[in-house]
C-alpha cells in the first residue's frame, strides 16, 4: 500500500508533456476551417430576464469538432500525449481507449474524437496556436439557429436539443459535419457529442442543484421552485449540469471538443498559415 502510494505520488513528478509552442502541421486543421463570430452578448443562466448579459468579444471558432483522425495526427507528432505516455494526473485510464492499436480505424476517422481529457484537448488546441472556447463563447455560438444569431426562442430549437438527450447512445457516432450549419456556419454544436470548454469548472450548478438558489452567490436554482417555465433553460441546464459533473482529467465516451482563437492572435500569425 505505502509502496503503491509512493509510486502514485511519483506520477505527480512526471514532467508535464512538452507542449510544442510552434505550429504543427495538423491535417485538415487551419484557420480556413474556422469562422469568425462578431462580438455579442449571451444570457447567463440567471433566473431573471433582466439580469445583465455577458459580453462576448469577437473570436474565431472551429466549424467542426476535432475528429479522431486529426487528434491522431497530433498524438503522432506529440508522443507525450499518446495513451501510453500521458500521465495519470492529466488523463483517466479510459483516455483514447476507443482506439485499437493506438490509432482510430477507418470508421472512426471522421467521427468526433472522444475519451479525451480537458488537458489533452487544451494541449491539442495550444499546439495549433489556438485555445479551448470559454463557456460564454461556446454558449454564444450555440444559441444560433440555422437562420438567426440567437434562435434559442425559435420553435423547435430546444426540442431538437432535448431530442438528442432522448436519443439512444448508438454504438457508432455520426461523422462530423453532417448536421445543418447554424447562422455562423458552425456545425455539430448540438446533437453529436458534448464539448469541453476552457472554464467548464466555473459552472453555476453544484451537485446539489436544488440548493443552489440558497447559496450566497446569486446562483440560479437548477430545479426547484425557480419559476423557470422556459424549456430553453432546461436544455441549457443539461449542459451546465453536465459541465459541473466533470473534472479536468475525465475522459468520457460522449465528450469531445473544438478549438477557438483570439482574433488578435490570428492577425499576428497573419500569413504564416
Amino acid at each position: 500500500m505505502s509502496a503503491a502510494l509512493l509510486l502514485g505520488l511519483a506520477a505527480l513528478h512526471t514532467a508535464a508533456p512538452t507542449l510544442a509552442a510552434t505550429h504543427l502541421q495538423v491535417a485538415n486543421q487551419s484557420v480556413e476551417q474556422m469562422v469568425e463570430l462578431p462580438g455579442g452578448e449571451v444570457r447567463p443562466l440567471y433566473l431573471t430576464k433582466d439580469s445583465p448579459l455577458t459580453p462576448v468579444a469577437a473570436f474565431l471558432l472551429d466549424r467542426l469538432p476535432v475528429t479522431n483522425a486529426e487528434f491522431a495526427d497530433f498524438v503522432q507528432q506529440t508522443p507525450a500525449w499518446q495513451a501510453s505516455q500521458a500521465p495519470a494526473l492529466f488523463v483517466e485510464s479510459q483516455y483514447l481507449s476507443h482506439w485499437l492499436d493506438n490509432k482510430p480505424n477507418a470508421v472512426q476517422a471522421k467521427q468526433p474524437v472522444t475519451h479525451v481529457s480537458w488537458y489533452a484537448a487544451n494541449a491539442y488546441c495550444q499546439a495549433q496556436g489556438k485555445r479551448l472556447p470559454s463557456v460564454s463563447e461556446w454558449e454564444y455560438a450555440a444559441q444560433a439557429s440555422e437562420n438567426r444569431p440567437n434562435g434559442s426562442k425559435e420553435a423547435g430549437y430546444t426540442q431538437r436539443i432535448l431530442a438528442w438527450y432522448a436519443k439512444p447512445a448508438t454504438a457508432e457516432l455520426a461523422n462530423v459535419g453532417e448536421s445543418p450549419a447554424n447562422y455562423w456556419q458552425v456545425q455539430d454544436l448540438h446533437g453529436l457529442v458534448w464539448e469541453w470548454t476552457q472554464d467548464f469548472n466555473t459552472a453555476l450548478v453544484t451537485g446539489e442543484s436544488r440548493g443552489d438558489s440558497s447559496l450566497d452567490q446569486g446562483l440560479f436554482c437548477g430545479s426547484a421552485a425557480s419559476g423557470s417555465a422556459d424549456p430553453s433553460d432546461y436544455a441549457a441546464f443539461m449542459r451546465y449540469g453536465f459541465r459541473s459533473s466533470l473534472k479536468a482529467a475525465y475522459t468520457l465516451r460522449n465528450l469531445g471538443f473544438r478549438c477557438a482563437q483570439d482574433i488578435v492572435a490570428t492577425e499576428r500569425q497573419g500569413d504564416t498559415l
Partner: protein
Amino acid sequence: MKLKKIVAAIGMTFALTAQASDLPVIDAVLTAPPMVPAPITRDHAAKVVVKMETVEKVMEIADGVEYMFWTFGGSVPGQFLRIREGDEVEFHLSNHPSSKMPHNIDLHAVNGPGGGAAASFTAPGHTSVFNFKALHPGLYVYHCATAPVGMHIANGMYGLVLVEPKEGLPKVDKEYYVMQGDFYTQGAYGEQGFQPFDMDKAIKEDADYVLFNGAVGALTGDKSLTANVGETVRLFVGNGGPNLASSFHVIGEIFDKVTVEGGTLENHNVQTSLIPAGGALMAEFKVDVPGNFIMVDHSIFRAFNKGALGMINVDGPEDKVIYSGKVAENVYLPEGSAVQSIPNGRPKLVATSKDDQLLFGKRVYEANCQACHQADGKGIPGAFPPLAKSDFLNEDTTRAVDVVIHGLKGPIKVNGATYDSIMPAMSLSDEDTANVLTYVLNSWENNGKVITPKDVEQRRKDGKAIIMEGSAH
C-alpha cells in the same frame, strides 16, 4: 500495472469510508420490480454495501411505443433496497459510460443535505461513494436529483428503499413492489414508434401515461402479481411522480392495514389511500376469494385511459358466502307485473337495412361495449381485447354471436396478445345483438359481415358460454 491505474486505485481506497466501523460487512441484495428482497432476519446492525448503476436505455412504454428511460439498475422503478434500522450503508453509485447525463441519488431515507445528492453526483463512466446511517424505519422513495430534476424523474429515475424497524415487519405470505409514475411524450397515448420526452407537457402536468412499474401492462396478463386464497399480501407502493399524486385502490379488496405515507401511523380497513408524489405506503390485505383484483389509481381515467392499471391474480377455491357472483337475474317492472306493455303509439324502430343496423348498432355499442372496448375499438392493452382489426373476431362470426349472448371466459389470443378475463353474457335483444355485431364487423377495418336477428335467435338455441382452455375462473 500502469501508473494511471495505481493512482486511481489509491484514490479509491481513500474514498470509501470516513470512519472505520466494527460492524459486519454485507452486500445488499437488490431486486428488480415487482419483486422484493427477503425479509431481514438479522438481530443486529450491519454495514451494508450497496452498488447501484444508472443506465439510460430505450424500452417499451406501451405496445409498439418506445421511450428513452433513465434508470437505476435498468428498470423503472429502480431496484428495491431493503435495510434495517440502524444499518450503516456504504452507497456506490456508478454511472454507465454510455450515459449522456451526469446522475446522482437523493434517498429520502437519509438524514443529510440533499439526501446524498451532492455526494453522489457522478459523470458518465464514473462511480461515487458516500455513507449514511438509517436512523428512521419506514418505506422511502429514492430518486435522481440532477438538474433538471423534473426531467430525470419524469424519465423514470426513482425507486423504493425499505428501512425495516429493528423488530422487523409482521410475516406475510407475499410481498410485491409497485411504483406509479407519470410520463410525458411528444405523441399522444399509444402513438407508435419512438417517443421523445415532452417538456411542455411535463410543465403543464398534462400526462400522456400514468403507469405502474414503467409500462402499460407491466403488471397485467402473464405479468400479473399472484397469490392464493387465504394468503396475506403486502404491497410496497411508491409514487415517483414527477407531478401526480396517486389514489391507490385495489378493486374488490379492502386493505386490512395501511402504513400511512409509509411511516409508523397505521390505518385499518381502508378502501383507497393517497400516495403523494415522492411518497410511499405499505398496504396489507388477506385475499379471501379467487379472481382478478385490479390495482388502479382511482383518478379513474388514468387507470382506463393512461395505463395506471395492474392485476393481482388470486387462485383457489371459491367461498360463495364471502362472494357469490351473480345468482339471479329477473325482469324488473316497477309498475308491478300486471303491466304487460306500454302502448305509447311509438312502435320500436326495427332496422330495415344495413345502414339502419349500423346506426342502431352504434348506439348499442356506445351504451354497452364502449366502456371496455373503447370508442376506437382498440380496447385496453392487457385488460380488454381490441375489436379493431381483431383476428379473433373476424375468423369466426358465429363464435362472436355466442360471446355476446352467452359470454366467454379464459385466455384468448387477439392479434398476438393474450387476454385472460371475462366477457359477461349481455342481456340484449336479438335485434340489438345483431345490430351491434354488424356495427362492429363494419367498423375499424373488420370483415364487413352482416348479422341478422335470425342468426342470433339460432345461436340462443344452439350456442353456449365459451370457456377457453386454461381458464382459471
